[in-house]
């Protein structure tokens, strides 16, 4: 008889890796999203250029290549990252590039009259961004950020390439070791879904909090 509890704990070990990667990757992605998203809207051509190059490069090449690069090529340049570091770096930069576009789109969606009110009150560009535009744009970004976080959660399954034993990877091992497909796949399906729901509900809660009082503006 197959020892399911043992295999289950194997998958749970993988789940821990998946969660670590998701949390740290999301944090990096969030930072990159704002840096690059605001960079693209900057007045300085140099900054715009840099941000655009970053975004198009990471969106244009696949996560597989980026991960491969971070783990197998950087050592030749003398930078040897642990698998976890390499995974967080590649996932964070990749998803950050997508999220940067979300930041940009959301900021552009705020009406002209809000900028004009800023000017009339003599707020600096930075103050206007920070106090007026970004807080309103955040509400537009949030649902898509939720998407991005869930994508990152699921993208963690490619890290098996650099010998990080995440959930999908462990499930595949269990599958080929036991010849049973249903058990491991059903287990990770439930786990992924549970994690995704946590992300979704946190985002919804945040959205509701921030939308408080705005009910007359938004529908």
């Amino acid at each position, binding site marked *: 008889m197959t020892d399911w509890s043992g295999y289950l704990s194997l998958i749970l070990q993988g789940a821990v890796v998946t969660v670590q990667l998701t949390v740290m990757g999301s944090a990096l992605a969030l930072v990159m999203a704002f840096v690059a998203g605001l960079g693209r809207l900057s007045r300085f051509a140099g900054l715009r250029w840099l941000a655009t190059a970053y975004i*198009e490069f990471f*969106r*244009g*090449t*696949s*996560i*597989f*290549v980026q991960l491969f690069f971070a783990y197998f090529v950087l050592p030749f340049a003398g930078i040897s990252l642990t698998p976890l570091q390499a995974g967080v770096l590649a996932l964070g930069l990749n998803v950050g590039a*997508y999220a940067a*576009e*979300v930041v*940009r*789109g959301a900021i*552009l*969606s705020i*009406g*002209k*009259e809000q900028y004009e009110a800023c000017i009339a009150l003599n707020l600096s560009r930075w103050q206007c961004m920070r106090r007026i535009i970004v807080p309103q744009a955040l509400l*537009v970004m*949030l*649902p*898509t950020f*939720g*998407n991005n976080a*869930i*994508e990152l959660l*699921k993208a963690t*399954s490619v890290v098996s390439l650099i010998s990080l034993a995440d959930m*999908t990877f462990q499930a595949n091992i269990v599958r080929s070791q036991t010849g049973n*497909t249903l058990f491991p*796949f059903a287990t*990770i*399906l439930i786990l*992924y*879904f549970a*994690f*995704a*729901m946590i992300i*979704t509900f946190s985002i919804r809660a945040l959205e509701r909090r921030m939308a408080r009082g705005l009910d*007359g*503006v*938004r*529908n």
Partner: protein
Amino acid sequence: MEWDWNFVWQIMPTLIEGVKITILATLLGSVLAAVVGLGIALGRRSPNRILARGIGFVAEFIRGTPLLVQLYFIFYVLPDIGILLSPLVAGVIGLGLHYGTYTAEVYRAGIDNVPRGQWEAAKACNLSARQTWTRVILPQAIPPMIPALANYFIAMFKETPLLSAITVLELMNQAKSVANTYYRYIEPITLVGAFFLAISLVAVVLLRWLEHRYGRVER
């Protein structure tokens, strides 16, 4: 290993076959995702509570679990209940459903950001629910969301290699297979990278133009 141009010309026809399949799958998948996403976004706002909740749950589940597992399910599990789909059809359905749950969130954000005054004006004009959606709300909601939607179509394009799991001979799969037939990796894999980057860049330019053209509504 040396770069061998003769070899490049020799394998080009095979790779082009793969490119065709990849582009076909992406295009069909995008169309399906755009439609499914809208369906979900509208369905979730349905006054019929049960329908709205049901659609919501299914969408969250699909969104929260990996595409790979879903492809496996469509291709390997559905036959057990008598649905035997061809690999490409199964792949397009998988991509369309999966990305449809993403685009649904994008639509939702766009719809939420149409000011309440617009809904009210539509009522005062006595437009029906359908007319309000098609003539007033969606034309304002969708253009600002084009960048975010474009993100997903590019992401989908780069995820087509997953279709190899259900034996679709897309670009990556073709490349691996020629690489193995001739024991030369450099040319096929480099060409795949170049194809992906080139197609994404063309897509990005095209979508930028679209965004520029339709992206902003002055209020």
